[in-house]
């Protein structure tokens, strides 16, 4: 479903992605872990067409999407949904307009859009009372749910999650993780999550990839993550400062 070959991206002298390779099968929930600044967000932005890689191939549904924008990808091949780290809800629009944004732009009637938006709100555990509120009137956890609602509104084939639990308390984070897992399974979608929250990894992932210094240095089923003798993985999942991953600029 998603295949990345020899992906390279640099900003001036800083080489962020170095011949990165990863393959995510249809229906798989892959999670990319790694320290802050290792290139996770850059990888996601390249996949979304928000950044143009210097070289390499990104295939989504067997089509190379390098140089194409999401409008093209969504129209030509597969539907894509995205949950941003901060939610990225449009603060000038109320909640139901945020959720049904894509349909509203395609001339679907406001009445129909609001109806589907309220159904979507229920899917993410919110009631219809919030439909007419604005994002600033919601808590962080509720905003994440709305953002998830917007990501799944068009029933996408692929959903990307960027640090879905950042800024949430552990209980709300667990609720969001379970909600993500449930909705991804319901849709039968392929999911790619980038995070360094290990509880997210354990809940959401079917496969885990470790990104370090611009490359995938480990990738396997989530069950193998706890058993592996890979020192990088051990250091990362146990949150240790001593190990092969050197702490720089922290």
């Amino acid at each position, binding site marked *: 479903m998603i295949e990345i070959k020899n992906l390279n991206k640099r900003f001036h002298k800083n080489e962020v992605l170095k011949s990165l390779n990863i393959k995510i099968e249809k229906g798989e929930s892959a999670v990319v872990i790694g320290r802050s600044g290792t290139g996770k967000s850059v990888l996601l932005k390249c996949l*979304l067409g*928000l950044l143009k890689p210097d070289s390499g191939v990104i295939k989504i549904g067997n089509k190379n999407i390098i140089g194409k924008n999401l*409008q093209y990808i969504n129209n030509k091949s597969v539907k894509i949904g995205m949950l*941003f780290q*901060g939610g*990225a809800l*449009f603060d000038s629009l109320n909640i139901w307009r945020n959720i049904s*944004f894509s349909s509203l732009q395609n001339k679907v009637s406001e009445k129909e859009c609001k109806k589907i938006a309220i159904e979507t709100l229920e899917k993410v555990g919110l009631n219809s009372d919030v439909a007419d509120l604005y994002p600033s009137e919601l808590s962080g956890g509720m905003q994440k749910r709305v953002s998830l609602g917007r990501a799944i509104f068009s029933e996408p084939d692929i959903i990307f999650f960027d640090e879905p639990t950042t800024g949430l308390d552990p209980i709300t984070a667990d609720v969001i993780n379970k909600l993500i897992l449930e909705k991804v399974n319901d849709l039968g979608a392929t999911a790619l999550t980038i995070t360094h929250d290990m509880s997210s990894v354990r809940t959401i992932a079917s496969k885990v990839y470790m990104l370090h210094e611009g490359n995938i240095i480990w990738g396997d089923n989530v069950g193998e993550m706890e058993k592996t003798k890979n020192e990088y993985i051990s250091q990362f999942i146990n949150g240790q400062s001593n190990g092969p991953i050197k702490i720089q600029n922290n």
Partner: protein
Amino acid sequence: MKIFTNVGSSVINFLEETGKFFIFTIKTLKSSISKWYFRNIFQQMVSIGYLSLPVVALTSFFTGGALAIQIYYGGNQFNSEVIVSSIVALGITRELGPVLGGIVVAGRVSAAIAAEIGTMKVTEQIDALRTLSTDPFEYLVFPRVIAGIIVLPILVGFADVIGIMGGWFVGVQSLDFNGTVYLQNTEIFLESNDIISGLIKASVFGFIISMMGCYHGFSSEGGAQGVGRSTMNAVVSSSILILGSNYIMTNLLFAS
């Protein structure tokens, strides 16, 4: 040696910024042949035009009044009723209406656009638009630019009338002019070209104000400080460009 490095660096930065702005303008013009978001255009017309009306009206009224006093006391008071009314009318419609209106709207609107788009940029809302298959140039930039181009001449039209009335009010109340004669003189001396030239200028200023707001908003980086810097740059650059382009347009419209 350091001075050459600094000058060179400034020139390179200026050229880089000009190039970026040129590409931004091309993208905006390109978005005009795609989808038009009429709801957004209407919202922006209200925001740029209707909500700016009180501040533009006050500015014009007081400017018209002050101009009348300056002409009366600064010039020959013989035949002053004719001179004051004609110079106020010409000064307001040709120069002060569009330029002061433009500067006031630049302070209000350019800053608001830059802050709004800048915040959207740093909170990933613009990326979110793209992931929802919506071109931010079509959805955010073009509606603001077209609204600026349409609404500024209307605002300046109001500013012209209110500015002339400011002069009339001061003339009648403080300078003992006959109100009817003042308005008759205004009508005699004012030609349609004076008004049209001011409205053409206003349209160009509308383009400058909205483009500067959008461009600097899109260039925002690094959180609240970055948005603040973009907002300041938007106001400064639109004000300078309004004054510069006004000089060029005055030469083109009147010197020939």
